[in-house]
């Protein structure tokens, strides 16, 4: 049964992703839209955290190893209350804590600097181990990109995680999620360097693997529950996703990995995300002041 609240949040976050990238004039929509359902489920369904106390020692940690998708993370952080949503449009602007890639020192709530792909899993291992040594119940969630796992350091960490801390401090507080959207920067992953059989690879390294539809909020929640219930080893979740999910002209197109929409494209994207057919758009906007404000802002950007 789909959680309507989470679906609404995910939809709103998609709108904000499009909005902030358009204001920034650069950034990565494809991987932000593919990961947002995972982040929404985490931040609003699972995470034990307190935005008022981002340094709470027993908070659950999220490490977005595919750091270029940080606009998605900023939207769920803003909605959770780490900072006002109005600040989202400062993304990538001089002086903003919303750096183009996550900066731990700039924004409370960011757990590690990422953006240089391939490093977040190692840091997550250290976090999970440190929490275990402390006797903390906190969990660590690490999100990897599919292209990202071509990096060698990922496999150093993959090899170590099921063994590290054993037998007294196994890293069963760690859940790793692969945003398997089948596209990397230059092209489809299959065309650059195929990962298959990806499940078998992680299983061979000693990880229990769960495969899900990464846009099905129920499946995500269930996988996270299963991971939490699993004792003695960390869990790997392969989330099959669609790059650019929610915007027809971005979906499954490598071109939308790393470019921002133009204002007119953004407005169309927002309409699609909200599921409003073209003929009903004016009427919709008349009734929805918040969306109207976002669209007007974007239209003003176009005029500039």
């Amino acid at each position, binding site marked *: 049964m789909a959680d309507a609240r989470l679906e609404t949040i995910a939809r709103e976050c998609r709108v904000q992703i499009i909005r902030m990238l358009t204001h920034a004039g650069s950034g990565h929509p494809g991987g932000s839209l593919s990961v947002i359902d995972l982040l929404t489920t985490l931040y609003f369904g699972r995470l034990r955290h307190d935005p008022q106390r981002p340094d709470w*020692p027993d908070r659950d940690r999220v490490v977005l190893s595919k750091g270029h998708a940080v606009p998605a993370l900023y939207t769920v952080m803003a909605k959770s209350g780490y900072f006002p949503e109005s600040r989202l449009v400062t993304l990538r602007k001089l002086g903003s804590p919303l750096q183009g890639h996550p*900066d*731990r*020192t700039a924004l409370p709530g960011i*757990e*590690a*600097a*990422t*953006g*240089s792909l391939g*490093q977040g*899993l*190692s*840091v*997550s*291992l*250290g*976090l*999970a*181990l*440190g*929490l275990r*040594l*402390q006797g*903390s119940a906190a969990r660590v969630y690490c999100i990897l990109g599919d292209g990202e796992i071509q990096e*060698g*350091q990922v496999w*150093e*960490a993959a*090899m*170590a995680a099921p063994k*590290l*801390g054993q037998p*007294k*401090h196994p890293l069963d507080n760690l859940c790793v999620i692969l945003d398997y959207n089948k596209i990397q920067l230059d092209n489809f992953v299959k065309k650059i360097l195929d990962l298959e059989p990806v499940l078998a690879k992680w299983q061979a390294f000693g990880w229990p693997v769960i495969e899900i539809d990464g846009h099905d909020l129920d499946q995500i929640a269930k996988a996270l529950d299963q991971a939490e219930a699993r004792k003695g080893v960390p869990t790997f979740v392969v989330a099959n996703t669609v790059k650019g999910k929610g915007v027809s002209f971005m979906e499954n197109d490598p071109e939308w990995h790393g470019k921002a929409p133009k204002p007119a494209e953004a407005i169309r994207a927002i309409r699609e995300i909200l599921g409003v057919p073209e003929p009903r758009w004016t009427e919709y906007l008349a009734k929805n002041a918040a969306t109207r404000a976002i669209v007007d802002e974007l239209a003003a950007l176009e005029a500039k």
Partner: protein
Amino acid sequence: MPAKASRAAFGEALLELGARDDRIVTVDADLSKSTMTTKFSKTYPERAFNVGIAESNMLGIGAGLALTGKVPFVCSFACFVVGRFETIRMSVAYTQANVKMVGTHCGVAIGEDGYSQMGLEDIACIRALPNIPVVQPADELETKQVVAYAVEHEGPIYLRLTRQNLEPVCPPDYRFELGRWLVLRPGNDVTLIASGGTVFNTLEAAKRLDADGIAAEVINAACIKPLDEELLLRSVGRTGHVVTVEDHSISGGLGGAVAETLGEVMPMPLKRLGVQGFGESGDSKGLYAKHGLDPAGIASSVRKFLNR
């Protein structure tokens, strides 16, 4: 005190500090026998992690541990630690993770293993990153104080340690302070600045120069970043000549750091002694002689530099 390798002094210090401070943990990459964390890992097996031959992962795990409040010492040969520069840059430096990076087996002094195992570019690399002190102790006493300091220091730090034994050079009442150098021997004709493994030979060279009527001031520069700018300017302001002596690439190390500062603040004749080109296999005495880092070589370079 007998001569002791700074890696050995490090291992002893870690054991001692570990007893008092349970935040301290070690992360090694299959070189713990060489980095000498073994005393610690035998005593505190639950706080010592060997992640296999995977230095990038070692650094990242160290960063994560630090972010939960642990004080991790991540240890390998200097070349292998700093060889994973990209992980240091992101996961340690930019993250501002409180990781204590320890690079042992620095310089050509490791000898027979040859270039592949020699840390010769580590100072240059780490020095380029914001906010990471680079510290190279010169003897057992200084090493133990530096390790104790590293535990207290908030933020990442890099310690550069030797494989070879180091003769004691610091006075018994010496106290290490970040950014403070130590005049081991006063003199008015030339300032010799050495660090780590070259300090003792530089003192020996100064004795030889004395016999020629050259009064060399010898400074132990444990802190390569930050430099002791005050002491540097005071000393070279008096002597008017400066020679740096280090077992590291001639580019970007202690000599480079001193040259950068003096070039801006007080330009003057300067000579950098260090390693040129790749290292190679050989006995460490022979290698020091070849690179002019033995007492005779240092003294002769200083004479030539002063036109004496």
